[in-house]
């Protein structure tokens, strides 16, 4: 039986963002990553899904104090050494990008200074050839003091740097522009604020095609449905032609999923072995969000990463 055609055509598409610069373009990366480019949602043909989603593996500037034991295990020999950590993430666990997360500069988590952050940035840049994401601690004052120095230390490497928010965007957006980086705009699970931040940085002259959005991430069981729907709405707005929403997006799956009781509790026999459960929780959060249309996924556990890579290959 002939079936009616259901091919919708849309005015807009997700922009493509290139992260990383090789020597040809003034950087020292050995590879670059391109994300975005989707021209449809859900039932578009597979050619319309754009670039393959990529996995960014988290590397912390300072050894984490509160990671659950099953997450510490695969990294236990490198947690004190961000460069070795990054190398392991790339060579053993197949990171497409390294997300260098500066938790240690937070006043409550070490209060480290700019010298430390710059040193870590340079060490990681030297240790791996993949592009970098440089992600602050979320404490505005410290981020504003330190992230510009981090940006400068990675000048010309075309990193993805962030995050900027509605209330704190000027200094980082300006320095990212000057140093030739891409920028992450962050919003607290609120699509209107998400758009507003993009407008604010674009008013400063930051090019829209160098922005990646971070709408905040809810883990499986802990608000993932909010992230899921905002991601779908962002894609629909993009397809409808809203240029201020037409960016690729990033999710922070690793840290959010491992906060869940279901991922880290070791004493709930009715939920299965924690050594398997944690990675499964992280992978499940990621694959669920993949269906809502995300482009970069920050992840942690190698077993979860393997599951999600395998799933991405089946989807592409």
């Amino acid at each position, binding site marked *: *039986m*002939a*079936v*009616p055609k*259901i091919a919708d055509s849309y005015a807009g598409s997700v922009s493509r963002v290139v992260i990383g610069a090789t020597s040809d373009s003034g950087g020292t990366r050995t590879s670059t990553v391109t994300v975005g480019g989707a021209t449809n949602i*859900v*039932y*578009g*043909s*597979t050619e319309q899904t754009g670039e393959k989603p990529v996995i960014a593996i988290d590397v912390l500037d300072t050894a984490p104090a*509160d990671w659950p034991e099953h997450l510490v295990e695969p990294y236990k020999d490198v947690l004190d050494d961000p460069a070795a950590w990054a190398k392991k993430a790339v060579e053993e666990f197949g990171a497409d990008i390294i997300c260098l997360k500066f938790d240690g500069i937070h006043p*409550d988590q070490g209060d480290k200074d700019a010298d430390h952050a710059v040193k870590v940035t340079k060490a990681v840049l030297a240790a791996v050839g993949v592009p970098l994401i440089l992600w602050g601690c979320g404490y505005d004052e410290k981020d504003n003091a330190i992230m510009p120095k981090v940006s400068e230390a990675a000048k010309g490497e075309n990193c993805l740097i962030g995050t900027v928010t509605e209330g704190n965007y000027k200094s980082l957006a300006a320095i990212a522009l000057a140093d030739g980086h891409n920028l992450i705009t962050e919003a607290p699970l609120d699509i209107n604020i998400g758009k507003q931040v993009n407008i604010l940085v674009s008013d400063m002259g930051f090019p829209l095609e160098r922005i990646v959005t971070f709408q905040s991430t*809810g883990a*499986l*069981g*802990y*608000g*993932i*449905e*909010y992230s*899921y*729907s905002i991601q*779908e*709405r962002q894609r*629909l707005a993009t397809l409808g032609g809203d240029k201020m929403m037409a960016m690729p997006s990033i999710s922070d799956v690793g840290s959010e999923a491992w*906060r*869940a*009781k*279901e991922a880290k509790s070791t004493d709930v026999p*009715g*939920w*299965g*072995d924690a050594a*398997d*459960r944690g*990675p*499964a*929780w992280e*992978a*499940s959060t990621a*694959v*669920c969000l*993949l*269906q*809502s249309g995300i482009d970069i996924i920050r992840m942690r556990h190698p*077993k979860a990463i393997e*599951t*999600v890579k*395998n*799933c991405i290959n*089946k*989807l*592409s």
Partner: protein
Amino acid sequence: MALTGLQIFKMLPKSNCKKCGKPTCLAFAMALAQKKANLDECPTVSDEARTALAEASSPPIRMVKFGTGDSQVQIGQETVMFRHDEKFYNPTVIAVNVSDSLTGDALKSRLEQINELQFERVGTHIQVNAVAVVNDSGSADSFAACVEAVSQGSSLAMILLSESADALSAATAKVAGVTPLIGYATADSAEAVAKVAKENKCPVIAAGADLETLADLTEKIKAAGVEDIVMAIQKTALKDQLHTLSEARALALKKTFRPLGYPTISLAVQGSPDEQAAEAISLLCKYSSVVVIETAEKYAVLPILTAIMNIYTDPQKPVQVEAKIYPIGEPGDDAPVLLTTNFSLTYYTVESDVEASRVPSYIMVVDTEGTSVLTAYSGDKLNEKVVGEALKKHNVADLVKHKKLVIPGYVAVMSGKVEEETGWEVIVGPRESSMLPKFLQEAV
């Protein structure tokens, strides 16, 4: 396409008899168009109009039920592509497969494993809802024997899967009383399988490799007298499977293309438990009404069931927790008391951070109609009166020997009024829940 209120009105008696409970026939027609009324409520509608309206007003995706009693499940009758447009109604049913090559103790222990796939999380019971018996043996007798044994060893709804109409006939006869979902009806076997379904009054799975084939099949099965149909889209690659599931949903909803207006069933039975969980979650996000898995590993099934719970929540209605006092750890009479709201996301964030602090505490949840701290404060749903009443209602003064209440940093502004109203000393906590561990370890 669905009819408008005016189109429906033209077919009604126009007597304004009010017997349907609406003031006028037009009002009833409008309610019908919005699916807020049922045609049966009109006692005088003509048979002609009834047939025409039933056809036009039947849901674009049919609802199908299988199983009986408490184990009955219902699937389909979805109305939107995106959950934020309305909501997804009938949660995906997860079925675990059982091979009919299993007998005796092996079968028994497999069923025990499956029966244990039930979980309590965030105060809700979630579970695997069906068993899919697969005719791996190729023998009709083994299949029928296994199906019978499964029906005795498990109370879950049943799905019977075989390529052979004879095997389905033999097996279905054994369990017709519990209304199994049976398949597969393919282009070759459609008539024979439809006959089995009709005789046993059970729903049937139409299986085809593309939508054209499926549309033909469902029409054929319907012509044979079976209307409760579930579609299996047989694509090998996951991306094609998801794509075709989405296309079928869109055709049913946007084009009201009835031959594809049925719920769907998909398999995620290959690979490791983690791979199956990843496939199952992808499939349930993209509209598969039933997903059959092979793994019975709890660690893999729990995230699948949680994903269903999350994707099928009503986006218009904030999920709430009960407003009461929650002990975290084993708090003594010197434990801190923390205030938060009954928006589930707020509560569970606070709960997990208090747990992380390893400081035994009480969390006092007040009813703010499911809004977060700031929203509740702005809407005057979180004020000194609400706090005072909650302190009294839960007899907090008897639980602890101090009179100190930790309030969220975002509502520091209400400290004075709370102190005046309640006589409790207010300690302003951090603005972000994530800072609670440090706060609790140091400040309290």
